[in-house]
């Protein structure tokens, strides 16, 4: 789970789930606690599903929140 997708790609990560920034990957402090939680719960879920996904090449998984 990384914000800097180009860096994750360059170092050879195969399964990449985007996060929102460097200092706060999974919860923007300018948003409400509820919004932060929704985003974090969703993206961690995407990462868990990514672990079960069979891929053939470097893949950036899509997030909805």
């Amino acid at each position, binding site marked *: 789970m990384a914000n800097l997708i*180009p860096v994750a790609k*360059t170092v050879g990560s195969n399964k990449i789930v985007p996060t*929102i*920034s*460097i200092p706060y990957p999974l919860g923007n402090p300018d948003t409400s606690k509820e919004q932060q939680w929704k985003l974090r719960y969703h993206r961690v879920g995407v990462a868990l599903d990514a672990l079960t996904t069979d891929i053939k090449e470097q893949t950036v998984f899509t997030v909805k929140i």
Partner: protein
Amino acid sequence: MRLELGNFHVKDIVFGEFTSFKDGVLTINKEEALSIVKEDEDITEADLLIVKPGDEVRLVPVKEAIEPRCRVSGGPVFPGVTGELLQVGNGRTHALKECSVLVVGKHWGGFQDGLIDMSGEGAKYTYYSQLKNIVLVADTNEEFEKREQQKKNRALRWAGMRLSEYIGSCVKDLEPEEIETFDLDPVTKRSTDINNLPSMVLVLQPQSQMEESGYNDLNYGWDCNHMVPTFMHPNEVLDGAMISGSFMPCSSKWSTYDFQNFPTIKRLYKEHGKTLNFLGVIMSNLNVALEQKERSAQFVAQLAKSLGADGAIVAEEGYGNPDADFIACIVALEDAGVKTVGLTNECTGRDGASQPLVSLDEKADAIVSCGNVSELIKLPPMKTVVGELQSLARDGLSGGWEGDEKLGSSVKEDGSIIMENNAMFCGDQVVGWSTKTMKDF
């Protein structure tokens, strides 16, 4: 815009009764100068020293370097920072050359601070060992950040700017020994001869990655974190629009002196009208989120394209994740058909075996490289230390450490040191001074 920089070449600096410049000798009234420093009540202790190339002096923690200057037509040297906001880059500014005001913490350092050796093996690692320096060593009451690794260094940096303006003002009414003229016609009002030359822009990515204010480089006093890339006249950069911040491993940092003297801008002026049509500067920034990085790259590419640039130079003030801003910007420019050359340093590790930039792309096929931030440097003790040597080990300087399994502390009992290039004050000189490069072994 037409900027006249009136140069006064300083051959010696002494303390004396009147702050003045005569026959190459800069005399400073120490008491008066210190009273300017202490105008800010946050400054609790302050002293002034003069150090020259060859002196057996080690300075640490160094926070800032500034060229003493004055604005002949009146107004602050750093508008929006040390005084009211006004447009710079036009008119006459006087400068005391071959010298700088260096600001050194009396005790406390931080991630962004660096080291300068004025002589010996260590002198080659920083540009400032070649200058005659007026050193302000001071302490402040900024208790909130005394033990913090990241320091804004506000009181000290502003004291340095006030001091440089005070010293610079002594040449306000004198006739300079030489005048450098920087003159660019508006982009659409240039002669056919110039318009027929390949045109280019200089893209600068000053450090702006802290979201809290007080750490980033400022553009006319405005936090570079809060801007999208904009078009600027190179004279503005040379004439005090930009000041250095207080965040970034020190060898990657651009001091205010670096901005005032930006060697790459000066070289582009030399080529303008001969081999190149220098359109101007696109002032970009460095960001912490991918979307922000991409937005800046997109703005830069659009500005370059709209200006009709055939080429671009992109320079970054930093390494690590800023490499992603740097590479994204180069890729965006190349994708827009703008032939681009990058200017940066690298982080290949103490053993040299690590990937040079954290983000890479085959489109970045032309890069000038100014050094390895993590090169290990051992230096013998120095007769005199100005500041506090322990700060290198104790205070989290980017190239120092308190304990390392193999190397021990950065500061040894005999006063010798072992450090990474990271903590050499503005050591990689990406603004263009650097005579270092990187080679494969």
